[in-house]
């Protein structure tokens, strides 16, 4: 156990976490640069393309330290986005230490702080690492000072590196060995294994990532999940090398995997404790939480024939994404679909992209919504996350909506515009302080609905990319909610309805009308687009009629090409949804979700 180190790298998005992990893997495994795929731990296309980590991954690095001893360094990678903070917290519980990675040019950001607090809550030892020292704009000394002053960490401990060039990485590995404590735990005690992740493998079923806290686990053991008493027989245990490597046992202090014929990742929930049926432990490990979906949207296939495919794709996706929930839904405009719950907007986008890319289904998503509480006059409570089920306003006593506490870190010159943004978004109880000269940490209580709309994009744009943002849910507060409907030539498009605060209704309605005007192609007749609350129209636009759509020339040499153009036109029309007599393209549904970037 002395030769094990379990650690994680925590960082703000883009500070170079995956690159540092890549470099460490290369140094320890001796994989040549030529064979090496960048972002080694990010196996999904979408992770590579966006440069983000969605699913955490774990890898065991064999490392021969300067003291001549062989160590097993378990790197538990974590997602870097606020939507996935629960996954981060689970991953951190399985570690004794963490590298806190800070970009030498960007400095400390909101998520650095949030992740640091998470690490501290888990009693982790922390090694601050200043990365990207090779950048011309790098200011490592200034950042080190920030680390000391903002974060209260020991500057002596700070290491410097360039994950890109590899400079300083060896030294970091040595520091992990010398500064981070080895795991504790009793291999002879009753088994307590913490699930911190689960991945789906088409051949083996669910692969559970665990940290053995106490006890020892062998192939053939019968395990029990403490949250639901489900029992499974262990088919294989092992550690995460470049490939999975099966082992005879996993014992206290180790990080590894369990394969036990578990069908879906749903059944192996991060945070749960695994013990042995025949010799159970007395108490589950602390910290287990049900995953909370906070953003909801309905997903429809563009072609109604694809409903079965979409259902199958969602089921498959859920095998590997325990945070995704879905229920059958239907819409007059879009037919049958699913109401889905997500951890946040990024999670929603990721699911949408994976469905379209990996499962090849074209989708329409409805306006994302949070979950509201409607208190009815008869004293009952309805939780509403779908505008379709919004009760008759006459029966509603009052409504409540979820609030978050937002933490925003930025250079002080953006203070004014960020305060305005928060106020625009109905922010309350705004406070701020200067952690270091020139930088402001602002905290503010904002309705979650305002944040999922386009808050993050706006923040990025008004702070020219320097503002960073993190949030946590706090409570429900009274709201003045209305249901905003969109009518196309007098017909309500149910899929475009949204629940909004009364003060935002007109602006949202106008925005929706304008976006639809841009996206709906002109048709043979005039199209009226209206936004309404109940019977009251609050915004409108018109799309003028198309007067002509004719191909002037078509002779012997053009027939094939002109026919193909018509076929393209036909295919385009097939991808549209007909509401009343108006054809609405998929892009129009998507455009309504997008904010107007002023």
């Amino acid at each position, binding site marked *: 156990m002395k030769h094990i180190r379990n650690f994680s790298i925590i960082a703000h998005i883009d500070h170079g976490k995956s690159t540092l992990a890549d470099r460490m893997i290369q140094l320890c495994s001796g994989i040549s640069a030529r064979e090496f795929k960048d972002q080694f731990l990010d196996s999904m296309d979408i992770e590579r393309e966006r440069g983000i980590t969605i699913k955490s991954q774990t890898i065991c690095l064999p490392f021969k330290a300067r003291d001549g001893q062989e160590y097993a360094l378990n790197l538990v990678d974590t997602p870097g986005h606020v939507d996935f903070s629960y996954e981060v917290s689970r991953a951190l519980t399985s570690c004794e230490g963490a590298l806190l990675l800070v970009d030498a040019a960007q400095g400390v950001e909101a998520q650095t702080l949030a992740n640091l607090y998470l690490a501290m809550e888990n009693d982790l030892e922390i090694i601050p690492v200043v990365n990207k020292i090779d950048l011309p704009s790098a200011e490592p000394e200034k950042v080190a000072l920030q680390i000391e002053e903002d974060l209260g960490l020991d500057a002596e401990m700070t290491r410097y590196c360039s994950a890109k060039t590899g400079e300083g990485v060896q030294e970091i590995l040595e520091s992990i060995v010398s500064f981070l404590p080895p795991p504790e735990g009793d291999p002879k005690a009753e088994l307590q294994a913490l699930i911190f992740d689960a991945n789906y493998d088409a051949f083996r079923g669910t692969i559970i990532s665990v940290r053995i806290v106490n006890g020892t686990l062998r192939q053939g053991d019968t395990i029990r999940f403490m949250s639901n008493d489900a029992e499974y027989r262990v088919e294989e245990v092992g550690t995460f090398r470049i490939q999975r490597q099966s082992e005879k046992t996993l014992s206290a202090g180790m990080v590894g995997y369990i394969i036990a014929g578990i069908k879906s990742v749903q059944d192996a929930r991060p945070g749960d404790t695994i013990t042995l049926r025949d010799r159970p432990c007395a108490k589950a490990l602390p910290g287990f939480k049900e995953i909370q979906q906070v953003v909801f949207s309905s997903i429809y296939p563009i072609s109604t024939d694809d409903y079965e495919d979409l259902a199958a794709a969602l089921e498959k996706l859920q095998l590997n994404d325990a945070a995704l929930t879905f229920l059958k839904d239907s819409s007059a405009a879009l037919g049958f679909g699913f109401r889905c719950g997500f951890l946040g907007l990024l999670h929603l986008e990721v699911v949408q992209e994976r469905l379209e890319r990996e499962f090849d289904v074209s989708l329409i998503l409805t306006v994302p919504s949070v979950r509201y509480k409607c208190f009815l006059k008869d004293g009952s409570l309805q939780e509403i996350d779908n505008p379709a089920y919004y009760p008759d306003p006459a029966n509603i006593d009052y409504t409540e909506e979820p609030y978050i506490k937002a933490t925003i870190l930025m250079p002080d010159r953006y203070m004014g515009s960020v305060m305005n943004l928060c106020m625009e978004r109905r922010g309350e109880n705004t406070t701020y302080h200067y952690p270091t000269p020139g930088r402001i940490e602002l905290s503010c209580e904002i309705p979650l609905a305002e944040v999922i709309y386009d808050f993050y994009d706006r923040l990025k744009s008004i702070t020219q990319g320097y503002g960073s943002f993190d949030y946590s849910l706090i409570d429900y507060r009274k709201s003045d909610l209305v249901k905003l409907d969109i009518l196309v030539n007098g017909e309500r498009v149910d899929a475009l309805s949204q629940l909004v605060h009364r003060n935002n209704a007109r602006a949202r309605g106008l925005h929706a009308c304008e976006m639809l005007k841009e996206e709906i192609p002109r048709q*043979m007749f005039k199209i009226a687009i209206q936004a309404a609350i109940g019977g009251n129209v609050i915004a409108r636009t018109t799309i003028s009629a*198309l*007067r*002509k*759509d*004719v*191909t*002037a*020339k*078509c*002779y*012997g*040499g053009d*027939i*094939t090409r002109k*026919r193909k153009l*018509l*076929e393209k*036109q*036909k295919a385009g*029309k097939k991808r549209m949804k007909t509401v009343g007599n108006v054809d609405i393209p998929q892009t129009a549904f998507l455009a309504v979700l997008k904010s107007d970037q002023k």
Partner: protein
Amino acid sequence: MVSALYIHIPFCVSKCRYCSFSSFAGLNGLYDRYLLNVKKEMDQISAGCCKKMELQTVFLGGGTPTVLDPERLVNLLDHAEKLFGFAFDAEISVEANPGTVDGRALELLRQGGFDRLSLGVQSFSADELAMLGRCHSPMEADAAFKAARSAGFTNISLDLMYGLPGQTIESWRTTLITALTLEPEHLSMYQLTVEEGTPFGDLLASGKLELPDEDTVVAMDELNLELCGEAGLEMYEISNFSRPGYRCRHNINYWQNNEYHAAGAGAVSFSSGVREKRFDDPREYCRRVEAGDTVITEREELTLEASFRETVVMGLRMMDGVERECLVARFGLDPERYYGEVLEKLVAQQLVELTPTHLKVTPAGRLYSNIILAELV
């Protein structure tokens, strides 16, 4: 059975700014070699026909066929006649650019067997011609027409373009009236289509091409019907008008989706159910004929149903539409049964009309033909 022949002459004096066709300027040195190879290709086509039939129509198009001197064109036509034979009342068309023909040339062409002349006039406004990059003046167009009449052409068609950058309804009216005053037997009027990869396409993409708005273009369409009607020219296809008896038989063959031979660079043929496109570049084309390699670069063979749909779509370009009996005879399919609801909806919208004998686009549907055809393709 194939009874039409298209021959492509891919040369021009200069390239017009809207043109996306297969045509090349500045290849004067290639003319004789090219003609030799076209004849060679025709020899092969003729040899490949098991059942030969006299040609009903021949069309010599371009490019600008008349960049070649009339003797060469007549010689080419003679070669085709020797190979295939022409029906006694065959329609033999040649395209000409007003800047490239004079009285003598037109006489030689007429005497050499061409009996239909298609003159690429495009506009009678000097400014518009310059803007299009045409190499002739309105006066030359007028003179060419009169010279063609004197040379004995009794079937003359004019090509005009409308919806041009900066064009007003008044300037179009002037062009149209000037054209009608010449009393042509046939008029082709094309709304400008700006194609990618042309100078016009680049200008449009960079926002530097100001096209007339849709209302103006629709007013031009209405004007075409009105003025041509008064002049006794009947609209028989989306862009084509003629006096009774002067419809272009060669083009009707295309719109009926019947088969045709073709020779020359860039030309497309359709025979034995196969559509084949030849290499565009005349140099490549020559090399291949000389080396005995194939000149075909694209080949397409449709299923029966796809071919049926294509035939309907092409046929609906004509005002007479498609004859249901012909479709049943050719494909064993009738549009009413085949399209079902889709057609019912178009009928209900009064965009098409289904009679016991025909399927055709209604006058109200004419300006929306792409929307209609996209349902049926």
